[in-house]
């Protein structure tokens, strides 16, 4: 396991089961990893929450949740999972969910940092 993978594991990712989803093809995982981090859904979710568009925000969050789960990034998964549930039940306003979104993005930043660190 290379350093990047080791660091992912330390951040809570079950590397073994995740990589098996990618047929143990590390390069393919990395390709998807960078693609995921640049997915425009992250920024869109922020805009939708700001615009109080709960339904669209739910769809976007839902999409991100599936993608993050597939990438095995559980620390981010916890944040997005909470957002999805909150948006599904619609018991809290979008404004109230903004802190949750920011936490998600802060968590994402940690993963973004790895791209430069390991020249992915």
């Amino acid at each position, binding site marked *: 396991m290379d350093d990047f993978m080791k660091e992912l594991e330390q951040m809570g990712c079950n590397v073994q089961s995740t990589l098996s989803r*990618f047929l143990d093809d590390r390069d393919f995982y990395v390709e998807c990893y960078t693609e*995921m981090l640049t997915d425009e859904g992250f920024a869109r979710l922020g805009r939708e929450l700001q615009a109080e568009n709960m339904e669209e925000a739910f769809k976007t969050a839902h999409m991100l*949740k599936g993608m993050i789960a597939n990438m095995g990034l559980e620390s981010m998964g916890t944040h997005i999972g909470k957002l999805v549930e909150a948006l599904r039940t619609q018991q809290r306003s979008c404004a109230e969910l903004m802190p949750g979104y920011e936490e998600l993005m802060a968590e994402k930043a940690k993963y973004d940092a790895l791209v430069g660190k390991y020249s992915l």
Partner: protein
Amino acid sequence: MEGKRQILVVDDQAVNRKILCKMLQENYRVMSCSNGEEALELLKKSGDQISAVLLDIMMPVMDGYEVLEIMHKDSSLSRIPVLVTSQSDEEESELKALNFGASDFVSKPYKKDVLKKRLLNLIERREATEAVDVLERDPLTNLYNKQAFCHKVHSVLHRNANSDKRYLMAAFDVVNFKLINDTYGTAEGDNLLKFVSDVLKRVLADTKHYIARVYADQFLIFIQQGQIHVNEFMEKSSKLLLEYPLDMKVNVKLGIYEITDPKVAVNAMCDRAVIAGNSIKDNFDRSYAYYDDSVIEKLLVEKQITDEMETAIAESQFQVYLQPKFDIATRKMAGAEALVRWIHPEKGFMSPGDFIPVFEKNGFITELDMFVWERTCALLSEWLHKYGKCVPVSVNVSRKDIYKPHLTQYFKDLTAKYDIEPKYLHLEITESAYTENSEQLIAVISSLKDAGFEIEMDDFGSGYSSLNMLSELPIDILKLDMKFINNRGDKEKNQGIMRAIITMAKEMELRIVAEGVEEESQVNMLHGMGCDLAQGYFFAKPMPSDNFRELLVTSELAVD
């Protein structure tokens, strides 16, 4: 299918799509697209090559539920299994997807082995079902084939052997299907069969039933008695068939066998329903018939006639009778018509009305006609060469004879063999031959006429006469049956029509023979109308050839 099976991945999220494609490409050829609309387009184009669909539910443009719904309604797509990709904590949407027709689901994050196994299960299950379908179904209509149908019927009858339930076996068919196939081509014929199958399904929609297509246009229906009202069923289906875009009306018949003894072989039940349907094939007034004793009786008679016809010809049970024709003006004998009689050793005199239609159906009529032609030529030859006296004799040329190759040469050889001039042999054709294949008939008649034979049109006005026919066919003589006047409504009006026909025939230089003349008053009327010849009981009944020869020898003739 050769090589790897093909899978369609539908997901709006590129990374998810990538993962799925990567996971599956080892075992499948994978196509992918990013929304429901694209997916449907692809499915419609090449759905028959796709073994399964992996479908995300939440997508822009068209979501997964909508895709499922559309696929479910389209019979060509509903067979494709769909594996819905959901998220682990969403039982509600999984259930909804299943209700919309999804076959199974997998949740994100994907577990490679679980996903692959579920997918393979779905595909194999579907392929197994399809294999059974191929064995059980008629590929054109997707109705049961005969074997599967009989098997299902047998099971139902067996299961209900001790119950009070009564069932019907019905045979549904398109009477003029062969004609439609011939006229519009088999592709159109196939379309019609598919349409008929849909009509049957629609009309029987609220009942429990089995339908099969057993061959060509023959459909079988098995249903519990009382579930349909036969009259209503025929009305509804005929009405729906009118919607089929064709210039020709689609005529259908239903034969019904009420299953009284469930132990009878299912195959035999099918036969009985078909037989009942066939019994009214030529009957325009009836659209359905039950299998009962009269149908059996009729069939038995037909079978007996068929069984005995060869013997009858070998043992000279058939005899040629002659009915003289007279010149109306001079009341002198001018000709005769050869009529066949069957004198059965046990049953005695058989009615031509009974056996001729059977022979026309089974093709034996040609052999019988040839017998009459030969016998007639022999008689003509005998009169001419022994007594030096002769009148022309007309013989029947059946519809089927027209298709006999080298018919003209056959007649030439025959008259040569007996050393008689062709003019003594008049050939009677019926107008129905014209409606069947006018071109062929015109060609045959012209060639016979060129060879010197005289052509008579028998029974003019009894069927679908067309004035076209009169101008197109090079005939010499028109035969009018007195039934023409007697049988139909307004006698005076009919006389008017007859007079008009005679006048027209004269204009066309055709001679007229009136048949079935029974009274002096008719003779006078015909004379007044300008009719030349007459034949009928008033003058003479058909008689054996010996009697006719005597009459011929002792009579003054209207011809030389």
